[in-house]
């Protein structure tokens, strides 16, 4: 096992020198693509993703190759096509990870990611305001170092904010893990926040996405074997991490908004009162 868990118990530091409750550096930008209705770029450590949002648009003459699963984007509500459809496509670049692997277009893992993101955002976006239309979110993974789903959800949220699509609140996501392997039943195992690729391979972990500042979990994905007793600790750390992430991406949006006001992109006086300017 390349990741020596005994080293952790000595210094309480993880392989990349973080403590158990520290996030990796999150850097984000919005409005990066001029051509899109909304766009964002997000780094969580070495995981780097870009997101482009188009729409909501009425389905005109059927454009070919609108990729991705067209999951019924609503959170299960409504009659047919009464809500906007959230179509998500995820492209993982060939150079994103160490071993260059070609992933087929119909990789089930990617399809699952797409449908998860679509359904998670669909629950927050006010899709009922745009009947018979499509919000297409396309995500590109440039570099992969763990917490992929979380990074994708955060980037998509940011891009949707940029596109000005009404939503209930941010959907913020992060991962959590546990220092014990599934077999070891030791009580001293610490939960960990925000796993990198190496930790993801070795340790049990889960991805959590919450809605805004609440404890309400939109996405909970666990793909590794773990004792049921560990779940509570991991979930608590994950939910807490989501709140931190929400704070960070909220700041990104506000900073951008302030700069846009200063640079005059937005006409002065429009919505100035509502803007938090300090």
């Amino acid at each position: 096992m390349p990741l020596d868990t005994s080293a952790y118990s000595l210094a309480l530091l993880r392989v990349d020198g973080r403590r158990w409750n520290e996030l990796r550096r999150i850097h984000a930008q919005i409005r990066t693509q001029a051509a899109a209705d909304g766009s964002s770029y997000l780094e969580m450590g070495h995981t780097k993703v870009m997101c482009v949002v188009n729409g909501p648009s009425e389905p005109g003459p059927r454009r070919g190759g609108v990729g991705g699963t067209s999951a019924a984007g609503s959170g299960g509500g409504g009659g047919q096509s009464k809500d906007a459809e959230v179509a998500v496509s995820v492209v993982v670049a060939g150079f994103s990870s160490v071993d260059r692997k070609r992933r087929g277009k119909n990789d089930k893992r990617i399809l699952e990611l797409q449908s998860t993101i679509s359904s998670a955002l669909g629950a927050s976006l006010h899709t009922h305001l745009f009947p018979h239309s499509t919000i297409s979110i396309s995500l590109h993974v440039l570099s992969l170092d763990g917490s992929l789903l979380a990074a994708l959800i955060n980037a998509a949220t940011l891009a949707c904010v940029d596109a000005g699509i009404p939503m209930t609140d941010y959907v913020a996501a992060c991962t959590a893990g546990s220092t014990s392997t599934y077999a070891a039943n030791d009580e001293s195992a610490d939960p960990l926040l925000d796993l990198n690729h190496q930790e993801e391979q070795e340790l049990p972990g889960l991805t959590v996405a919450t809605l805004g500042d609440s404890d309400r979990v939109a996405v909970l994905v666990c793909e590794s074997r773990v004792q049921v007793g560990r779940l509570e600790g991991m979930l608590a750390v994950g939910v807490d991490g989501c709140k931190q992430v929400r704070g960070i991406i909220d700041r990104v949006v506000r900073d951008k908004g302030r700069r846009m006001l200063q640079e005059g992109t937005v006409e002065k006086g429009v919505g100035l009162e509502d803007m938090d300017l300090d």
Partner: protein
Amino acid sequence: MPREAEPSLNERQFVLQALQENLRLDSREADRYRPLEVTFGDEYGVAKVSLGKTRVLAKASAEVTVPYADRPLDGVFQIATELSPMASPSFEVNRPTETEVLLSRLLEKTVRRSGALDTESLCLVAGQKCWSVRVDVHVLSHDGNVIDASCFAVVAALRHFRKPDTSIEGGILTVYTPAEREPVPLGWLHSPFCVTWSYFGEEGEMALLDATRAEEQVRVGSCTISLNRHGEICQIAKLGGTPVEAVILLQCTAIALTKVKEFSAYLDKKLAEDIKRRDAGGRSAELTAENDR
């Protein structure tokens, strides 16, 4: 492509209204499964599971192949799912719907990635020969909760399955027919089962187990939890949908564990019964015949 038939407004409203009053259309309690029934075929490795009107058939089979180059010591194990028009006219052959992709991913994570089957025991000659075990899942009729039924069927089929016995002498691999040597069971490590919760209401505050199709059509979210009876989570999938309080999810997991223990005991009982049934006219009878001579 035919769309899945939508329930009418009246049905939608009524199902939700009834749930508000803690009533379900079939008068079940919220955490009660429909009657679960498993039957085994005459052949080894065929399991038919019925959960109310949902029926799923799983068939396990094995053949000798060459292992993957990057995993010379492991056998090959795959699960193939098929949702055909037999289950509902909205499914088409060879065009996987989202339901089917998610189902196959869930089974993959629950059974394959959790290491329920000991794939190393499938290796015959390192790097050259191994068993390839394949489970085909066919959904025969769809009345909700296909996931739990399919997972149960896969586990039941694999545990019921017997692969031909083999031996290696002087580098020569011999596969014995059932007549020569009794087939042997697969190397099995633990039995994971899926338990799917469906959530209803504005904030997902109502949780139901084993939703029927009518209920599935009006739910706002679902969460599938896979566990084994030792209390190990193999997989959790709440793939979007309306956000649900974290505390509710923890409660759901605890209840799921008790359900999984029931499933586990039921499957053990059924497998034991099946072995006894096969044995009645089989080896023990033969043995007594030999003693008489």
